[in-house]
């Protein structure tokens, strides 16, 4: 005992200054945390200061203390002086272990005492509750110190082992059912640390004590094995190269992690309940028995479309599951695609298919587009391929009956039908609207078929819409333009396409849209917009200003991202309408004016502007 006392005095003499500094630090931290809890807007109890101290500062304190008491002693080989004394090695270990534990346990005790003293002013603390917190934090401190002490004996390998332990824990947490936050010592200092007033966390306490025992056993073995030479050899400092090698291994581990991307699985998406019509690889949710007939007809048609597309495009894998949900609040032509998370979840789309005005064929073509996109891992939506996707879907759904090319004819009023326009499909979509762009692609596909025949189109489409090779290998081979030029005579195609649109009637009244930015007070800006018709505005037409703020980088803006100010065109008048003060000088905005007529929605104008 006397020898232990002497050793303790030596440790206190050697580290006394640091320990006093740490005491001051603990006091300062606790004071700041208490202040933070007092003024924090969402504080439940003042004991939160103690919880933060235990979770954040105690481990930091432990790491620093472990370095000071254990690592430095072995690193500087000063333990040899102790070994030369008439002492057992175990006594040296016990002294360091005891001192570290005393400091950490003392720190959390002081932390709890201060927090409890201030909480007592307003809160109904009970001895049972405080005892629970005390036991939780003491066992946590014991486990923490046992692990850190042993890690200190690992010398130069302690950092790699810390990193490996951390990575393994995160991997287990993210890739398996194991929950780190509720396990053993982590569970002790979880959210319940200061809120659980009744139940003792026996499982966490037991696990923590077991971990502490194992860690201590390992530590003792390391320190005593082969007369301490193992610990001493481990204590040699790591060379810079070794350090960086560890860093490099860590980097590769992180890269591998990024590639593997471990995550929890859930069951693949499916509809629950009875109101579902099912076909192979297809489910249609109809909500109410009254809609069952519509759902069955739609399911049969979509199932046939998918089968036809699978054969025509030569896919080896079947299309993933397709789910169609009835959404009665959607307009007859307002379809929605929902992004599902899992790879096996398939496709989920919504439509108001019970609406008498619902155009089933247009919807089926749209669903087929989405299914092709999924089958090609999104490659079919790549800009130069997008028109082929839309055209192929339309050809498969409409067959020999070409849909009305009216909206494409409207586009042809403003642009010459050239392949270059198809290549820049997103621009066409933004400038003229999605319905017009879809009609343009469809009319181009039908023109292609009329020039080269259906087998040539199938060959071309199945080449463009083939599932891509991974990564940059998808970029190998001919470009979409080269494929197109190899498949058809571009001049003949463009001539036939233009001719088909020249004779078609668009069904869109001739109108001119105007848009101007008007300065308001200070930096505020208003948007004045209007539509002037050649003749009287159609009585059933709606005019709308679409607008959205833009980021610094140009991206496709989907219709759902656009705000819409809609008025009957007949009410718009000569002066037009104003969007007051929504944007300011220097904002980047997308502004579009849309006309809604029975033929569809067409954009008369669309601009990306940086406001002056």
């Amino acid at each position, binding site marked *: 005992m006397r020898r232990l006392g002497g050793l303790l005095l030596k440790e206190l003499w050697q580290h006394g200054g640091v320990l006093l500094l740490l005491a001051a630090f603990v006091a300062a931290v606790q004071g700041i945390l208490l202040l933070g809890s007092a003024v924090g807007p*969402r504080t*439940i109890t003042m004991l939160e200061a103690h919880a933060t101290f235990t979770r954040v500062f105690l481990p930091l304190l432990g790491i620093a203390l472990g370095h000071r008491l254990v690592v430095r002693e072995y690193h500087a080989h000063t333990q040899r002086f102790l070994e030369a004394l008439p002492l057992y090695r175990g006594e040296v270990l016990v002294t360091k272990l005891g001192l570290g534990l005393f400091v950490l346990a003392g720190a959390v005790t002081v932390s709890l005492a201060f927090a409890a003293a201030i909480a007592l002013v307003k809160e109904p603390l009970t001895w049972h509750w405080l005892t629970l917190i005390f036991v939780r934090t003491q066992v946590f401190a014991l486990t923490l110190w046992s692990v850190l002490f042993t890690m200190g004996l690992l010398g130069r390998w302690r950092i790699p082992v810390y990193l490996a332990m951390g990575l393994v824990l995160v991997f287990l947490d993210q890739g398996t059912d194991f929950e780190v936050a509720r396990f053993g010592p982590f569970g002790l200092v979880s959210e319940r640390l200061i809120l659980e007033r009744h139940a003792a966390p026996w499982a966490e306490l037991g696990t923590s004590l077991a971990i502490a025992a194992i860690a201590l056993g390992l530590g003792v073995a390391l320190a005593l094995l082969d007369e301490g030479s193992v610990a001493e050899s481990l204590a040699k400092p790591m060379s810079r190269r070794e350090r960086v090698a560890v860093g490099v291994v860590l980097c590769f581990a992180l890269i591998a992690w990024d590639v593997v991307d471990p995550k929890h699985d859930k069951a693949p998406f499916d509809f629950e309940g009875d109101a579902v019509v099912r076909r192979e690889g297809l489910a249609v949710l109809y909500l109410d028995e009254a809609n069952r007939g519509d759902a069955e007809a739609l399911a049969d048609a979509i199932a046939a479309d998918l089968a036809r597309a699978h054969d025509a495009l030569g896919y080896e894998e079947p299309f993933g599951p397709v789910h169609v949900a009835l959404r009665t*609040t959607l307009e007859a032509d307002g379809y929605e695609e929902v992004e599902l998370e899992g790879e096996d979840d398939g496709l989920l789309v919504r439509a108001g298919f019970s609406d008498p005005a619902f155009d089933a064929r247009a919807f089926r073509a749209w669903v087929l587009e989405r299914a092709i996109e999924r089958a090609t891992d999104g490659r079919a939506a790549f800009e130069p391929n997008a028109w082929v996707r839309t055209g192929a879907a339309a050809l498969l759904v409409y067959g020999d009956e070409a849909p009305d090319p009216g909206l494409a004819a409207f586009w042809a009023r403003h642009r010459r039908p050239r392949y270059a326009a198809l290549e820049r499909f997103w*621009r066409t979509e933004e400038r003229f609207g999605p319905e017009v762009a879809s009609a343009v692609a469809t009319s181009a596909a039908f023109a292609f078929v009329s020039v080269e025949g259906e087998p040539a189109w199938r060959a071309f489409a199945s080449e463009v819409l083939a599932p891509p090779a991974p990564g*940059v290998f998808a970029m190998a081979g001919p470009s979409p333009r080269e494929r197109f030029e190899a498949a058809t005579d571009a001049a003949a195609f463009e001539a036939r396409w233009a001719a088909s649109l020249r004779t078609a009637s668009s069904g869109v009244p001739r109108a001119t849209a105007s848009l101007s930015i008007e300065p308001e007070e200070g930096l*505020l800006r208003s948007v004045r917009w209007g539509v002037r018709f050649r003749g009287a505005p159609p009585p059933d037409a709606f005019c709308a200003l679409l607008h959205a703020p833009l980021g610094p980088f140009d991206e496709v803006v989907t219709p*759902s991202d656009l705000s819409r100010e809609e008025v009957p065109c007949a009410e718009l008048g000569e002066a037009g309408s104003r969007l007051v003060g929504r*944007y300011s000088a220097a904002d980047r905005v997308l502004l579009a004016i849309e006309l809604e007529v029975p033929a569809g929605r067409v954009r008369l104008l669309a601009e990306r502007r940086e406001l002056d």
Partner: protein
Amino acid sequence: MRALYLKELRSLWPFLVLTSLLMSGDLIHRPFMERLDEQTWEGIASYLRAGEDGTFGWVFAILAVCIAYAAFPREHDEGTIRFLHSLPVRRPLIFVAKVAAGLTIVWTGVGLLLLTDTAQSVWNTSSFEGGHWRADIALTHVAMQVAFGFIAYAHGLLGSVLRRFGILPYALVLVVASILKDVFPPAAWIDPTELLVARYEGSHLVIAWGPWIAHGFVALVALATAYAAWMGPADRIGAGLGRAGATLAGKLAFGCGTALAGVGVLALSALVSSIGPSDEPIEPTDEPVEVASIDTRQARTARYEVTYPANLEARASALIEHIDAIHAGVQRELGADVGPVLVADLTETSSEHLGIASWTHLRVGLVGERDVVRLHHTFAHETVHAFQHRLSDLRQGDAERATHFFAEGSAEHVAFRVAPNGPAHRQARAVAAATWARHRMSSDDLIDERALRRRFDTSLVYSLGDRWSAALASTCGDAAIGDALRAMAREGAPRDLAPRAFWEDTLRAIGCDLESVDAAFDALMDADAEELTDVIDGLPRLGGGVAGRDGATVRVVALLDRDVDPSMTFFVRLRSDPDSEDTETITVRGQRDPDAPRRVVHRVSRALIPSSRFQLQLCALDDPRGWPFCETWQWASVP
């Protein structure tokens, strides 16, 4: 000097490998995993995305600090610094050579990052996304990274003086910064990783000069201090102090001094906490100010242990009479067992909320709440939260991004059933329906808290969440709310799911279907909009933004699209970016222009604005105790 610099550089080459891997390691796998002709520049260089969080800053800072730690500690610990001192090179130049070598490695990483990100993004030739790379943005952000690298390196050099203990003061500073951010959101700039968060005005990257200058200055001070510690007089002073500290008298003096400082800090904290939280509302009020006395009383019912301010005993007693009935009602609605006795703290005073709850604790404010019906409702709402935490075994909080709307919405739904408040419910439904219709929201906007926060008023989780909970109950049965909570805690429930996947999984576990619930919810919102047309038509649309600046005051103007009731009030919310928490949002009340009733002016002190580029939201309030109608968030700049 040059030879010394090259020697230092040679010794740091392994760090160059590490830096290259950290900064440009994606070059190893991205080309094999992703189609580069579909990738965009800011998709690859994610640190350029507007408002992206500070993760890149953290990684970069840790790297720079590691490099800084390689400069001096080892030379001193192993005594090799004496060899350097023996060279015919002056001490400042030794310091400069080491710092220059370290910074060369840090900045090489910056250059590599620019090169590899650019090289991977040139393959995209699509019409919109092909031309993203821009020299002005690239060079500006590189300059920011260079400056940030210097700042992190300087602090690393200073921290390395204390070796491992160097992380402790910095951890403390970060905690203080985090507290400050909660208490005074404009102080967010203190967090250095905020410096690298990209904000844009139009297509130009905005540089927040104020924070950069402040952090640059502090970094220079840190560098000078590090110089003094490693090379200068502090080295000698430290040795002297070490000798003094080795004596008993020195230890005693040192210990007493630090203990005194600690006691001082504690005394200060005790003083502040006894005063209580200072939630001074920013919105002015004409009502007499009511305060809770420090003196408290305690009461015990079958289901609660209650603490309340002694000066509000009558109000507390009126509430306490009913709380066991409220508890029983909540228990019945959720199909739950009785559970433990709850702690109810009625001393809460907050301008941010009416109450909060966690596990077995709830805090509800009696102060300023004279309406007994509302008080019962708030108490019921917080009691539901306590039940939610227990029934879901705290899983609801683990998946907060997916469950926030449900936590608040189902609490409102159950509270309106247990403690009915017809007018308040009607007002909440009207605001929800107006926002829903005018902003063309979808259920996906509500389910994902991050999506909601990006564009909409986050308080919609209460009113819209209430209607979604009603749709859940009508579609899946009255027990569905309680069942959903229990399903979250079921054995083997997958974790870390995205919001939609979370709800698909949870509802499937109770034999229900998210699409069916969402469809019912859509229909319910349409019905509400139709039923409450008269109330909705009374709510104005608000256009506007920053109009100008008068000295230290920024003028935010809202222009109304219709005449409104004179009692209607207006306010603007301000936040740093779409990821800001509710507690980091500042609210400023507006004044109607007496000459132009459709014009509302909000005068905002520049000091309250979180950054030079920020977001604002214009709101109108037709019932001072109800929910506001708000436009979507929009970006703005300080003129």
